[in-house]
């Protein structure tokens, strides 16, 4: 009996946790399809005439289009740089006995300790001085620091999980060290590496503070544009705001499956190894 009661309480607590995720997000989604009058009701309205007006308004705004384009280019380029430079580095650290392996790992980790505001303030001055302030180039370069550090940190364990025997067999078959990396290690570790790269994408797509400080108009990314939606008028236009929040949140959520699998596999091998 006592067991039945405690199981019931446990499930109730879990249900509250699940509701805390589903309800606010669903509410934001619904409100994106609501007219202003249906949002501004003292009693929350569950049934209403849906409208596409908010989404159309958001899609037609010049600032949103530029923001979306900027976000795609900036996160795309910095993720590519992070992967192209970070994955080989992670492989070397994971596979070859090096004097500095520990120092490299600690250095990469310590980059995460830096408060973003502490990097952003001097970078304003630096980019102003070289005439690249408020450009996508400046953001790509700055974000590459983030993507590189993240990719390296997450890819080292992924490469370590590749069985050494496979690489040794390839070596016996006459593969050189570079061929082993490109033809063996990369394809074998591919699934985990994708997780690491996607994670770095989510990180820069969501990044706000640095983008806010390094852009004023031309290179604004989507989070900055969305944050400014509140300044459209005297009243906060919640319908439009909810629509833009949905647009902003979709890309990271597309990767929910990839990242959830990445998390599971990373944690599984961690405890066994």
């Amino acid at each position, binding site marked *: 009996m006592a067991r039945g009661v405690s199981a019931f309480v446990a*499930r109730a*607590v*879990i249900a509250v*946790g*699940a509701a*805390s*995720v*589903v309800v*606010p*997000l669903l*509410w*934001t989604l619904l409100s994106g399809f609501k007219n202003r009058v249906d949002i*501004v*009701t*003292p*009693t929350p309205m569950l049934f209403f005439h849906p409208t596409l007006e908010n989404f159309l308004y958001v899609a037609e705004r010049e600032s949103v289009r530029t923001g979306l384009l900027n976000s795609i280019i900036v996160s795309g380029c910095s993720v590519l740089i992070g992967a192209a*430079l970070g994955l*080989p*580095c992670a492989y*070397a*650290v994971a596979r070859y006995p090096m004097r500095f392996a520990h120092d*490299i790992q600690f250095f990469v980790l310590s*980059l995460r*300790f*830096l*408060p*973003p*505001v*502490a*990097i952003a303030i*001097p970078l*304003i001055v*630096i980019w*102003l001085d070289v005439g690249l302030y408020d450009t996508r180039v400046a953001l790509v370069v700055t974000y*590459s*620091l983030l993507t*590189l550090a993240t990719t390296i940190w997450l890819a080292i364990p992924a490469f370590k999980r590749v069985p050494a025997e496979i690489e040794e067999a390839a070596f016996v078959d006459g593969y050189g060290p570079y061929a082993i*990396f490109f033809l063996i290690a990369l394809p074998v570790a591919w699934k985990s590496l994708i997780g690491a790269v996607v994670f770095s994408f989510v990180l820069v*797509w*969501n990044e*706000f*503070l640095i983008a*806010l*400080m390094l852009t004023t108009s031309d290179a604004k990314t989507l*989070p900055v544009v*969305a944050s400014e939606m509140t300044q459209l008028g005297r009243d906060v236009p919640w319908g439009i*705001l909810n629509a833009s*929040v949905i647009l*902003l949140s979709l890309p*990271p*959520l597309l*990767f*929910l*499956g990839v*990242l*959830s699998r990445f*998390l599971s596999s990373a*944690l599984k091998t*961690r*405890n066994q190894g």
Partner: protein
Amino acid sequence: MRIRTHLPFVFTAPTMAVLAVLAFVPTIDAVNIALQNRELSNPDSVYVGFANFRMLFSDPRFLNSVWVSVEWEVITVAATMAVAIPLAILMFEATSPRARNALCVLFIVPALLPRVSAAFVWRFAFHPLFGLAVYPLRLITGHPIDLLADPHTAMATVAIVDVWQWGLLFAVIIVKLLETLPRQPLEAALLDHARTWEVYAYVALPMLRGALISLVFVKMVESLRAFDLIYVMTRGGPGISTETLDMYAFSQGFIESGRISYASSMAVLMMIATTAAFTILWRRVRRWQEV
């Protein structure tokens, strides 16, 4: 079996060089700017030594923001772990593996959301007039309650959003770690008539000690990045009751006065304090994990 190869050098040297430039140029320049009196509107500046730093320590708003940051750090780290550990244990005990996997995917969602989005979702939910989260409060008391405009509740309300993102993610991580634990010690404890909570308190959680300490460490680092949430939800207000260090540095450097040197001196202090604290802590963490 390894032949001599230059691969490690070719693969690490360029990357490390790029990282070093990207990391050290701004940090060194931060110090350089902090020693001047540069303003955004006026590129001419002279070196003023430690004047900015001296000014900081007699600036009540700076001291307030240090206190707010420490408060934020303690509240969010403690609350995140206080939500994550019990929730993980409940999920492990009371749900079928299939339901648990579905919940694990669901609980990652808040952490994946851009913080700007999360902040708006909850600012909307806490809206005094038509917010869904404060609707029950509105029904009971009969008048609107603006949690974000009250200096006593603003910080806790923003912290809820932070814990919503991190607490649930950590619960997922802890569940997955519990799943990897060997069953025998737990079953042995149950055979010895240990209660369920005792099994966790004395057997399961101590087995995960290293991982839990790392999680606390990660959360401490991540809690320093509260800017997005606070910027969207309160802008440091009401008054300066939620103005953290990064928020104050931002408003000094940008909004109010463009005193970029003054802001930079704050950034330098933050950098020194956090790097020192986390380097020492990280060494400790490594030691605890090895024991």
